[in-house]
């Protein structure tokens, strides 16, 4: 039973196209039900995120199915941004997606939740069947396997995430930690957002202009502090994020040394994302001070991403192995189907023969005949069925099993019909 994938991602489609064909969780169920009712679509699921819209369908009539799926992208003119994959290529693509190989940021974790959500929506819309019910959980398993057996998702992949990761390596739990914002640049606010998500609660804002400090403090629920009280603020907080527009160092070693004495050895993380820099580089030499500037953080991110890149081959190996496993599963399903056809064909003959004697025999005789014929059928079919199962397990393609049935004049009946 072929699996068909049709869709686009950030590599093939511009943002104008992506925003046009991105569907919300509320829209997806009705969309799936509409497509499920279309010609040739037996099972269907849709992954729709800001970076991709992909529809996975299972069909017995690929031509008709493709036509039905195209209606999803109606009005797109020449859809050269669409890719179309069949069978194992489609399966492989889904496994790559769930592993994070196809994501904008290699190995990111969010996609795993998005694949899970797509499957839940399809289940809720009752548009899944035996193949997708197996395929999606399998893809989620492959995604988890890739992340646990390789380092594809290790290390922060953005400057803001690197800042949070760094803070966690020093303070462990960020809950209740205090952050001082020196200046009010855009990057400060991005890092602050992540730090707040990680549990940072108390925020102090220091700026040359108190009014601007108060403005940012009001926006992030912090407290504005006059610039003159910078030293006092430094002795209280755990993390300093500096991004002023000052053309000189605002925090230097001479200023930091007495502050660190007051801190009694508590570590202080300084993140300097200003250009030109706000913090004198030699502050790094002060005990218990950890200074990172924008280049350091970008360096960490670049190093992490290059490490992730080196893991791609390992993840591809996992994807390939799992693809083969899934293919074997599909084959075993086909073999089971061939066995079912064999059994049904013989059962049809048995019922026809029984019909001939219905009426001429008593009820008791009829029951004995039914039992006898059933037993005979079971005995006759036992060996061929076992042999087919063994052959399928040994890797004989299901097409050969179907061919054998065709020679016996069994398989042709069903397919022709």
């Amino acid at each position: 039973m072929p699996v068909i994938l049709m869709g686009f991602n950030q590599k093939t489609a511009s943002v104008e196209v992506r925003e046009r064909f991105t569907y919300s969780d509320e829209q997806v169920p009705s969309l799936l039900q509409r497509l499920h009712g279309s010609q040739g679509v037996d099972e269907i699921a849709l992954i729709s995120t800001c970076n991709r819209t992909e529809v996975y369908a299972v069909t017995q009539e690929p031509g008709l199915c493709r036509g039905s799926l195209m209606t999803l992208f109606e009005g797109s003119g020449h859809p050269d941004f669409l890719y179309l994959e069949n069978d194992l290529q489609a399966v492989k693509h889904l496994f790559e997606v769930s592993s994070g190989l196809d994501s904008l940021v290699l190995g990111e974790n969010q996609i795993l939740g998005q694949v899970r959500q797509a499957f839940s929506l399809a289940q809720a819309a009752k548009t899944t069947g035996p193949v997708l019910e197996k395929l999606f959980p399998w893809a989620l398993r492959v995604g988890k396997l890739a992340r646990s057996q390789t380092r594809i998702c290790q290390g922060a992949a953005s400057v803001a995430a690197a800042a949070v990761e760094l803070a966690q390596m020093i303070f462990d739990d960020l809950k209740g930690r205090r952050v001082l914002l020196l200046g009010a640049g855009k990057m400060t606010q991005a890092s602050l957002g992540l730090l707040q998500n990680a549990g940072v609660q108390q925020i102090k804002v220091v700026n040359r202009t108190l009014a601007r400090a108060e403005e940012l403090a009001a926006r992030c629920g912090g407290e504005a502090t006059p610039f003159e009280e910078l030293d006092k603020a430094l002795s209280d907080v755990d993390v300093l994020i500096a991004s002023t527009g000052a053309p000189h160092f605002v925090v230097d070693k001479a200023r930091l040394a007495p502050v660190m004495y007051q801190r009694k050895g508590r570590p202080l993380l300084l993140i300097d994302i200003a250009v030109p820099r706000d913090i004198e580089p030699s502050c790094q030499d002060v005990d218990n001070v950890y200074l990172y500037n924008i280049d350091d953080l970008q360096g960490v991110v670049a190093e992490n991403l290059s490490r992730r890149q080196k893991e791609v081959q390992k993840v591809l190996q996992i994807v390939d192995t799992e693809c083969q496993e899934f293919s074997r599963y599909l084959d075993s399903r086909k073999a089971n189907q061939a066995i079912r056809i064999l059994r049904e064909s013989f059962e049809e003959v048995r019922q026809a023969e029984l019909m001939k004697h219905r009426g001429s025999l008593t009820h008791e005789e009829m029951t004995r005949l039914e039992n006898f014929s059933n037993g005979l059928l079971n005995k006759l079919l036992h060996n061929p069925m076992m042999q087919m199962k063994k052959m399928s397990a040994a890797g004989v393609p299901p097409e050969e099993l179907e061919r054998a049935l065709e020679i016996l004049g069994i398989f042709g009946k069903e397919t022709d019909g």
Partner: protein
Amino acid sequence: MGSALLALSALGYWASAISFHYNLFHRKQRDWTQWLRILLSSHALHSLALLVLTLQLQHLPVVSMPEVMAVLGWVLIALYAILGRRWKVDALGGIAAPAAAVLTTFATFTLGHETPHNYRGAWFGLHVSSLVASYAAFCLAAFCSLLYFIQSRRLKEKKLHTAFLLPSLNTLDRVGFRFILVGFPLLVVGMVCGTQMPGWRWTWDPKETLVALTGAVYLVYLHARVVAGWQGRRMNMILLLAFLCVLVSLLAPGRSHGY
């Protein structure tokens, strides 16, 4: 029988140490289940070995240096398994397992070859056991400090990809302190029990003087940490210095001590 079991546990500790470092440095993963399984199995063997030794000797195996080393290794892993893991410093096992391996290997090779000493009653048993337990806690605190310096260096050098394998600086600092809170009272109990032994008096015995000095250094640490609220690099340096005193006092000869 006791020695054979001890030798087996030593082998187990070596295997767990190798498995730990393979996982950490080669695979760069924090999945330590397999390593922990080997460590705990070795510890079970170690417990059995000490039980057999106790039954053979008819008293606690703490009258000679090899016996004390075997017990020290056992307490070290027990404290690590119970407290270290509870306080989320699994990485400490990377030093605790090889340390236990060295101690048990030493004990295996020297057990039975040492000059025999007498077991001098319950006060003696309590004196040595408490001191050994306190030394094990001090060992783990020192290992925390060691990891603190490694982690601090990695963070200063901006090697985050290896820093993430270790616990955070604050955790290491806090757990080191907690081990001192466990070890210091045991040290005091051990010293007090020693003074209760018949005929004891203060004679500036080198071993006893060094133990008192060790206690004083830990007291300074506790004062700075609890009363003055200091932490961080300097506190961890004091911890390492105090541990140096522990090692010296353990190995120093004593006039009234067999080892």
